[in-house]
């Protein structure tokens, strides 16, 4: 059980700074998801917490103890890797017991802990097998088992589900969530998948090019994004961004209006100033995505109920939305609130 704090954490490789100062206080038992596109520094951030990367400046604290110069093994953490990083020459049992053996835990205690973990993860029939004899999902569970037997203060997950197929990913996501709830261990979870981030996180950190653009509860981040990047990254299909000037608004040069696809309604052309031609529609059953080209050349996507009539390609429709659902972003991408 532990708290984790990052304070103005920075990382440089040579002269290039890749993490530009991240601050967060993580409460005991909290599930934090770090989400962002590839190359945004999310894995580097996690690896600094793990102690696998040195900290250039700033501080990592676990349970109020600065751990910048503490070896990974002395930080009381456990990590699950993207490629699982199982020891290929050891049985599942030995993989899970490895850390305990090194810590000189008595043999019967090791057996008890590994058996408990195997039971939780439904790995009992496979304890004597080698990792290569297991399926992807089972290997994933062994990696989880190796983390939980050590009863660490903090779990670190580095894109643990990205090597699994879509169906298994959904299942493992639920398992990870319920496991983390049951054990109540503070967790940091890195992913590029916004669905994983939304569903798993108590709070999420949206990273963009080495900066934490926004830290908050998933639904707050979704409904109230702090930057243009967050509005565009979280949500699928992404937020529509329309040049404010072309909509006849004069806010500041280069300002954009962000509007989520589900907030736009298609209306008869006569009812609104803004119109576009339908490029194509994607009926998904419960909902339909309508992609339009506005008359001034900008693109927009509308998400509407599947029961509504699907507009034909080439048809011209009017677009309308509630002013309250608009988000205004300045030239630099930061939110302008009125």
């Amino acid at each position: 059980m532990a708290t984790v704090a990052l304070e103005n954490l920075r990382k440089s490789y040579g002269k290039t700074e890749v993490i530009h100062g991240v601050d967060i206080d993580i409460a005991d038992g909290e599930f934090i998801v770090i989400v962002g596109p590839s190359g945004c520094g999310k894995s580097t951030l996690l690896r600094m917490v793990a102690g696998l990367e040195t900290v250039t400046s700033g501080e990592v604290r676990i349970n109020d103890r600065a751990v910048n110069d503490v070896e990974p093994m002395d930080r009381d953490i456990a990590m699950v890797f993207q490629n699982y990083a199982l020891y290929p020459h050891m049985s599942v049992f030995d993989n899970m017991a490895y850390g305990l053996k090194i810590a000189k835990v008595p043999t019967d205690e090791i057996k008890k802990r590994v058996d408990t973990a195997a039971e939780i993860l439904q790995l009992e029939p496979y304890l004597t097998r080698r990792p290569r004899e297991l399926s992807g999902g089972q290997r994933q569970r062994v990696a989880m088992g190796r983390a939980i037997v050590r009863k660490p203060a903090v779990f670190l997950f580095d894109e643990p589900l990205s090597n699994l197929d879509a169906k298994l990913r959904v299942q493992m996501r639920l398992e990870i969530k319920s496991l983390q709830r049951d054990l109540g261990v503070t967790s940091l979870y890195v992913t590029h998948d916004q669905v994983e981030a939304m569903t798993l996180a108590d709070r999420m950190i949206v990273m963009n090019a080495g900066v934490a653009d926004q830290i908050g509860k998933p639904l707050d981040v979704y409904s109230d994004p702090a930057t243009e990047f967050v509005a565009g990254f979280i949500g699928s299909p992404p937020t529509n961004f329309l040049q404010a000037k072309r909509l006849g608004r004069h806010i500041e040069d280069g300002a954009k209006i962000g509007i989520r696809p589900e907030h736009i309604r298609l209306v008869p052309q006569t009812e609104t100033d803004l119109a576009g031609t339908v490029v194509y529609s994607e009926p998904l059953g419960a909902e339909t995505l309508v992609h339009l080209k506005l008359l001034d050349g900008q693109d927009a996507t509308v998400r509407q109920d599947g029961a509504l009539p699907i507009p034909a390609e080439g048809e011209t429709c009017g677009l309308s939305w509630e002013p309250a659902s608009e988000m205004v972003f300045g030239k630099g991408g930061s939110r302008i609130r009125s």
Partner: protein
Amino acid sequence: MEKRVTFKGIWLPLLLVAPQIVITAVFFFYPAGQAIWQSLFIPDPFGLSMQWVGLGNFEFLLSDRFYRASFLTTAIFSILVTVVSMGVALYLAVLADRLIKGSGTYRTLLIWPYAVAPAVAGVLWLFMFNTRVGVVTWYIGLLGYDWNHVLNEGEAMGLVVVASAWGRISYNFLFFLAGLQAIPKSVIEAAAIDGARFWTRFRTIVFPLLSPTTFFLLVVNIIYAFFETFGVIHTITGGGPQQATTILVYKVYADGFVGQDLGSSAAQSVILLLIVSVLTVVQFKYIERRVHY
């Protein structure tokens, strides 16, 4: 599924494997057959006539004190060469693997000795350790030690072992480095987080995962020590002093080409062939079980 190319006729595949088969036949099966045939005769020194002696050559060899001594010499020599060259190579490879800057230069320099022919390497070491003009001998002399591998059997053995192992280190280093770099970094990191420090990691993770490489090198190095070290021994000690460095393959040469006892020499070749076959089979049968692929 394994992809397999199937040929329609027999001639094209035969043609494709023919060069290898021809080379093996001409340079291996034919001489080996000749050796087995000749080992059953005693020819006269001029090669004009041969007398059938059956297994007489073998009987004589196995009761020969010098020949039996040569077995021991070979065992000591090949174990030392293998252990030294693999040990040093592994040590260097582990260091090179941890290196971030300049690893390319380091690697290139370490590969160079491999390009030196055994006989040339032998001469190099001979000059350095020459009892009269050798640089190293002189420095050792300053320390108060009188180096003389021409008279001292232990020193002669030490010198041929070092000279033989030296060129081999490069080769082993390359394989060990490749093996080390093939180990996923995250596995090492996982072990580090699990609490294993450098030596524990090396012992429990790195070394077992390196075992296919180690096993391969073990087989190859023993064969090297048995046969290819001839040039080194020939230039440095000539098998002496008092046969202290006469390994089996050197004795084949010394008895056959110097002593002109071709029958005995052929019999020795056959014995050598058997030993290496048995050794290789044993290695594959018993040691390979401990290898994790």
